[in-house]
C-alpha cells in the first residue's frame, strides 16, 4: 500500500450521446494523500460527481490512469478499499438501520457476532445507538444520511467517497453533520473525497479544495485551506475561514470578487 489514497493522471471521461460525444472530464491530475480531506467544488456539469464515480469504479475512465492505494479502481472496489455515500441515503427500506449498516459486511461473509458488534460500534460513532432496530422510513433525512455514512464506514475503508451527502438537508442539520464528519474522519483516519457545491462546506471540512469548471469538466485551481486539525464552531466565525471562503469564491468566478458591503 502506498501513502497515496488516490492518484489520477491525465484522467478523462467522454460520454457518447446521439448528437455526438460529450466531454465530461478532461486531463484530471489529482493526488489525495492517505488521511487527507479533499473537496471537489464547481458548478453543475463540471464533472465533480463524474470524477467521484470514476474513483469508485461506478463508471470507467476513457483515458488516463487512476489508482486507488496503488491499485486499479476496479480492484480497489472489489477489495472494499473505499466506502461511499450519496446525496440520497439509498437505504434499503425493508432492512432495519442495523441491517442497513451491516450490508457491506454481510456481502463479504462477516460472521453474525462480528457484524453485531461492528454495527453497535458504528451506530455509536454516528450517534444512532437507540435507532438500530428502527426502519429507514421512521428516521428523519439527517438520520438516514448518518446511517448511510455508518454503512460506508462498515468495512473500515481507508478512503471515504461522498457525493453531496448533505445536499438535501436543511442548513442546521447540515452544519451539525459537517462537524460530526470532521470528527469521524479524524477518528477513523480515513482519506475523504467530498463533492459539494457549497463553498463554506468545502472550506470548513477540507485540507484542500479542488475547484472545477465545466465545458469541458476540468480542474482549474487547488486551494490549501491550512486551517489545521481542529474544526469547531468557532472556526466558522474566524477571519481565516472567511479568507479561504473568499479565495475559493474568487477561484470559482475566475476574478477577484469586489466587496460591496466591506465595513
Amino acid at each position: 500500500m502506498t501513502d497515496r489514497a488516490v492518484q489520477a493522471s491525465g484522467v478523462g471521461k467522454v460520454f457518447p450521446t446521439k448528437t455526438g460525444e460529450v466531454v465530461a472530464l478532461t486531463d484530471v491530475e489529482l493526488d489525495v494523500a492517505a488521511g487527507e480531506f479533499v473537496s471537489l467544488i464547481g458548478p453543475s456539469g463540471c464533472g465533480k460527481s463524474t470524477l467521484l464515480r470514476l474513483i469508485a469504479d461506478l463508471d470507467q475512465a476513457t483515458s488516463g490512469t487512476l489508482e486507488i492505494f496503488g491499485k486499479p479502481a476496479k480492484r480497489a472496489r472489489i477489495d472494499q478499499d473505499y466506502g461511499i455515500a450519496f446525496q440520497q441515503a439509498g437505504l434499503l427500506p425493508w432492512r432495519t438501520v442495523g441491517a442497513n449498516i451491516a450490508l457491506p459486511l454481510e456481502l463479504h461473509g462477516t460472521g453474525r457476532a462480528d457484524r453485531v458488534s461492528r454495527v453497535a460500534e458504528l451506530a455509536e460513532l454516528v450517534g444512532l445507538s437507540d435507532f438500530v432496530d428502527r426502519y429507514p422510513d421512521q428516521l428523519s433525512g439527517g438520520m438516514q444520511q448518518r446511517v448511510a455514512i455508518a454503512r460506508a464506514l462498515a468495512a473500515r475503508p481507508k478512503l471515504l467517497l461522498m457525493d453531496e451527502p448533505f445536499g438535501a438537508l436543511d442548513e442546521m442539520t447540515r452544519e451539525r453533520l459537517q462537524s460530526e464528519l470532521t470528527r469521524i474522519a479524524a477518528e477513523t483516519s480515513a482519506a475523504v473525497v467530498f463533492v459539494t457545491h457549497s463553498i463554506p462546506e468545502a472550506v470548513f471540512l477540507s485540507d484542500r479544495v479542488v475547484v472545477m469548471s465545466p465545458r469541458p469538466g476540468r480542474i482549474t485551481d487547488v486551494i490549501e485551506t491550512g486551517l489545521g486539525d481542529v474544526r469547531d464552531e468557532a472556526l466558522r466565525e474566524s477571519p481565516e475561514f472567511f479568507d479561504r471562503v473568499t479565495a475559493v469564491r474568487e477561484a470559482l468566478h475566475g476574478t477577484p470578487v469586489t466587496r460591496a458591503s466591506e465595513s
Partner: protein
Amino acid sequence: MTDAATTMLPAAPKPGGGAPRPAPGERELPGWLRWVAPVVVGILILAVWIFWVDVLGTAPRMLPSPIAIAEEFVRRFPIILDDMKITATNALIGLVVGSLLALLFAGLAAAAKPVDGMLAPLVSALAVIPIVAVTPILNTMFGASSQFGRQAVATIAAFIPVFVNVLRGLRQTRPVHRDVLRSSAASPWQTFRMLTLPTALPYLMTGLRIASSLAVIAALVAEYFGGPADGIGTAIATYAKSGRAALAWAYVLGGILIGLVFFLVTSLLERLATRRSPV
C-alpha cells in the same frame, strides 16, 4: 408489449400502503363508520330483497328469499362443502402452479432480453383470449373424469397477472441502490437476492392477489363446460336447470365464500409485503 398488458390490470402497489389519503376538501371518515357503512348497505339490500320476495311476492321464481337460501345452505352444508373443496382445490392448484411458472418465466424474461421478446407476444395473446373458452377442448383432451382441464384453466388465468406484475417489479430497482450494491462489490447473485427480489416482492403480492380471484373464477366457470360431475359450478348449473332455485343460490354463496377466503389470504400477504415499501 408487457406494458400494454400491465395497464389492463390494477395498478402497481402504492408506496406507503394503508388507507388512501382523502382528497382536499374531503373529510376522512371516522374509523367506526368505515366498517359500519358497508354493513348498513348490506342489511338494507337484504331488507329490500326480503320485502320484494316475501311481502310483495312479485319477484321472479328463480329469485328465492335470502332466508330460504340461508336455510338451504345450512341444511345441505355437508354436500356443499364437498363441492366447495373440489373447486377450491382446483383453484389452489391453478394458483400455485400458475404463480410458480409465472415467477420462473418472469425471472428469465428479466434476465435475458431475447426471452422477454419471445414471451411478450405470447402473454399478450393469453391475456386477451377468454381462458375459459378453451375449456371444452381441454376437457375432451384429458377426459371427462379428470380435473386436469379445470386446473389447467385456473393455472393459465393465474399465470398472467403474476407474470406481468413480477416482471415489472424486477425492473424497479433504483439507481442509487444499484450503486450501493456495486460499490460494496456485491456479486450478481447477491444483488438479485438482496435488492432485486425484495424490490419485486410487493409486485409479486399484488399479482398474487389479482390471480387468486381469477383462479377461483376460472376454476368455477370451467365446470360449466363439462368434466367430472362435481364442484360448485356444476352444482349451480344442475340445480338452476332443475328449478331448485334456493339450492342453486346456496351453491353461489359457497362460491362467494371460496373467492373471499382466497382474496383475504392474498390481501393479507400483500399487506405484510408492502409494509416497508421503498422510501
